[in-house]
């Protein structure tokens, strides 16, 4: 059928629609995504007039990777079911990891408490009240040895949500492995190591932009030589979305951050195909199923083009956007919390239909407290049901070719590319952050989202519709406040036991390295092995690098 014939038949259908509407109006006058962009009533071939299969989609495992990064996707192996966990002490968290492995979890994902994420020891006055709360408290290699006790580090892959102090925690991991007899080149895992999104959305920054970018590129370089299977960064849109961004903004700001890291490494003299294959990404899975599926596909295609065309990467592995997904914490309601199981199931489908490499599913009780073991099990089972019972993992990229999906994939890619161009005009992601552009864009979207809920334009079941009277939930997880004192005592004992002269010497060497142009990783590793604490190491770096000052935007 010619384009004109198609348009004619579409127009005839439109007349039928108009007749129907005059008698049966639609529920809403306008259907829209959270961004405000219009959702059409129907998508047809007219929405993708220049669609070219080979060029726009290609095959899974081939450029531009719209359909996935591997040729067989989940038929070869399911995505890694990776549950983010960690609380209280290293011993307590170690028990939870062993439980998760027993339940079929395939990779560990370590949550650190806030003092650890900001490079403070548990006995620092600023840590008071926060020790062990949102993750495990790690003060030194001694804690890390307990955290991974009895877990063979050559058999598991470990993801660590650590950013500003990432080089220190990575060094601790390498040191623990060494004690287990596992060489660094056998280690699999990921560190988040994405400082730009900390400035934008997550808040656990320590150092200013420039030294932070240096630490990141130091890790790229060190790992490409010594820990070749390690994913050196997880460039994260997750927290940008949680802070209130739209799907398009999530793609745009994440890839803009990615561009900044690639550029920084190139500027530091590294060759793109040496480090780019170890870059990985981390996205959110929100409720709008088909928009999310399109988002992942758009991100893959856009990144492939950026790496190939903008940076001239030659290795196909450098073109591939591999990503971890977490279901959207911000969509969970404190009201009727069991409903969250259903939301998480929909979000799981989105991630899987979008071709994720690994997935964390949130627990139903996370709007109320840290999840209980029972809730975590339901969340893990949700993934296992989607993997084994739903059939969606049996064929690669099964939604491809849907007029809606392809049109949406293209529009998200185009809109994100426009936003990236604006960021380029501002001087790249670090400059756009400094000017507050990215934060302001997210804030505007977050405010609109809240207003949409409050004026009833957006319905959240149990929150602004279908409410019931309910009893407060029982059996929530609470972290024992004694954890803080126990950690403090452990540090005190450690400082008595260790060779303090050696600690002082390694810290002095680190300080010198920080002031020079040398890669700091080997020096951090030496300090860690001497049982210098995380706080001691970060304080040395604070002394040389200074601290980041937040640009407050509302």
């Amino acid at each position: 059928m010619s384009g004109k014939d198609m348009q004619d038949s579409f127009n005839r259908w439109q007349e039928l629609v108009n007749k129907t509407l005059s008698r049966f109006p639609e529920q809403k006058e306008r259907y829209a995504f959270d961004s405000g962009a219009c959702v059409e009533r129907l998508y047809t071939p007219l929405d993708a007039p220049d669609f070219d299969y080979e060029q726009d989609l290609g095959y899974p495992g081939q450029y531009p990777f719209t359909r996935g990064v591997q040729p067989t996707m989940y038929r070869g192996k399911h995505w890694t079911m990776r549950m983010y966990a960690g609380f209280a002490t290293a011993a307590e968290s170690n028990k939870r990891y062993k439980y998760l492995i027993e339940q079929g979890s395939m990779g560990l994902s370590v949550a650190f408490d806030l003092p650890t994420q900001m490079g403070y020891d548990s006995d620092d006055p600023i840590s008071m009240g926060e020790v062990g709360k949102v993750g495990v408290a790690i003060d030194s290699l001694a804690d890390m040895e307990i955290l991974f006790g009895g877990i063979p580090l050559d058999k598991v892959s470990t993801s660590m949500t650590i950013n500003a102090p990432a080089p220190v925690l990575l060094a601790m991991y390498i040191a623990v492995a060494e004690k287990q007899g596992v060489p660094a080149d056998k280690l699999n895992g990921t560190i988040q190591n994405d400082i730009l999104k900390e400035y934008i959305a997550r808040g656990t920054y320590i150092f200013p932009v420039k030294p932070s970018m240096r630490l990141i590129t130091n890790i790229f370089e060190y790992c490409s030589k010594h820990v070749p299977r390690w994913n050196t960064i997880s460039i994260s849109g997750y927290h940008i979305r949680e802070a209130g961004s739209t799907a398009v903004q999530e793609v745009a700001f994440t890839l803009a951050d990615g561009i900044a890291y690639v550029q920084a490494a190139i500027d530091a003299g590294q060759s793109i195909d040496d480090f780019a294959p170890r870059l990985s990404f981390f996205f959110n899975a929100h409720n709008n199923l088909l928009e999310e599926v399109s988002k992942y596909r758009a991100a893959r295609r856009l990144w492939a083009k950026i790496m190939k065309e903008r940076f001239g990467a030659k290795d196909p592995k450098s073109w591939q956007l591999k990503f971890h997904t977490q279901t959207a914490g911000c969509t969970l309601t404190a009201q009727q919390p069991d409903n969250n199981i259903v939301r998480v199931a929909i979000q799981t489908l989105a991630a899987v239909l979008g071709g994720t490499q690994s997935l964390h599913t949130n627990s139903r009780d996370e709007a109320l407290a840290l999840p209980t073991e029972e809730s975590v099990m339901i969340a893990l089972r949700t993934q296992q049901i989607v993997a084994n019972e739903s059939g969606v993992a049996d064929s690669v990229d099964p939604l491809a070719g849907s007029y809606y999906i392809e049109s949406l994939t293209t529009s998200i890619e185009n809109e994100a590319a426009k936003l990236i161009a604006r960021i380029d005009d501002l001087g790249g992601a670090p400059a756009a952050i400094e000017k507050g552009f990215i934060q302001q864009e997210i804030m505007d979207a977050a405010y609109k989202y809240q207003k949409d809920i409050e004026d009833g334009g957006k319905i959240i079941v149990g929150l602004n519709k279908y409410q019931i009277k309910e009893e407060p939930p029982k059996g929530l997880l609470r972290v024992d406040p004694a954890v803080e004192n126990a950690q403090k005592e452990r540090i005190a004992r450690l400082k008595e036991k260790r060779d303090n002269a050696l600690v002082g010497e390694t810290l002095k060497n680190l300080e010198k390295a920080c002031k020079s142009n040398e890669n700091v990783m080997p020096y951090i590793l030496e300090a860690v092995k001497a049982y210098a604490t995380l706080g001691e190491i970060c304080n040395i770096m604070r002394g040389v690098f200074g601290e980041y000052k937040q640009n407050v935007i509302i």
Partner: protein
Amino acid sequence: MRPIRILVAKPGLDGHDRGAKVLARAFRDAGMEVIYTGLRQTPEMIAAAAIQEDVDVVAMSILSGAHMHLLPRVVRLLKDEGVYDDILVLGGGVIPKEDIPLLKEAGIQEIFTPGATTAEVIEYIQNNLKRALG
């Protein structure tokens, strides 16, 4: 009548500031004068800012679980400085139900948990100010 002056604060190390910022903007849209502290505020910093800015309300948002430690401390400091009787102190975030009576006993007048609307919070503030806006 002068506008309500409100300090929106993020106590502790928690970086989840979406709620605090959305509320700050809603307060501003409702005609209030808003001072937002940004992240990583100690109780001492919050109390000092409240006094320096001469606010009618201190609204603190916390999702990290450290609320029992940090919120009552702010109240204590405001009492020590003799300004607590002028300032309405509010809290919000992921706060378990059973902690709410304890926080109220400690002098935080109201706690708002996930699902509370900006309209609800604004109305509460307008009806519960401690000192006149004369």
